[in-house]
């Protein structure tokens, strides 16, 4: 399953709930303000680290760029993708869950 998180983990609990309720083998994609969850020195990094053990974590490059987050600020193991990649992930996974 593809899980999409669009909220900053510093403001809302969407990422936390997504981590709690997503299964091993699933993919978590951070978009919009969700991209702040991928900051390597941020509070959410521990949560993302846990996910990376058995889940794929991606972040939308267009949203990173808009926010001035350079790729060297992103945790290692998190893959930067573009909108075309977002579509490919949605095709690859039979369901898409948006943690609004």
């Amino acid at each position, binding site marked *: *399953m593809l899980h999409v998180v669009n909220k900053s983990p510093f403001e809302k*609990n969407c990422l936390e*709930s997504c981590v*709690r*309720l*997503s*299964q091993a083998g*699933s993919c978590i994609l951070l978009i919009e303000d969700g991209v702040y969850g991928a900051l390597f020195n941020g509070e959410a990094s521990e949560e993302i680290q846990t996910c990376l053990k058995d889940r794929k974590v991606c972040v939308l490059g267009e949203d990173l760029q808009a926010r001035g987050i350079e790729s060297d600020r992103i945790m290692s193991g998190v893959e930067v993708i573009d909108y075309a990649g977002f579509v490919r992930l949605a095709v690859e996974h039979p*369901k*898409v*869950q*948006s*943690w*609004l």
Partner: protein
Amino acid sequence: MSEELQSGIVKKFLYINRRAPHGTNYAQEGLEVALIGAAFDQDVAMAYLDDGVFQLKSGQDTKAIGTKNFSATYRALGDYDVKLVYVERESLERRGLSEDDLMPLVYEDEDDDWEEKPLIHVVSAGEMQKIISESDVLLNF
């Protein structure tokens, strides 16, 4: 009914409710979708987690804030053939709530002499994980 609806496709719809009622109207409009969706002969289940569990709190009364008290509508879920309402235990506990604080929702089981049965199933995070992953269409409100 359009031809697609006669195609006989039955999918598992899961309505995931993660927001508190009244402060925003996502809960009210989300409930409207679930009730309309029930007419489509699909497998429909509701999931309440995070602040969504507040939607099912008993004793809601909006008279003093002048908004529509849609909480009574939850009682109709059973009449609309929704037989499964899942509430995540961890979300309840983190908010100091238990199942006793929730509205008693029931449905009449046509396969069991129309006996009234409880709609609400309090489940663990692990069970909720499985319920989400086994659904076909996820709608979030």
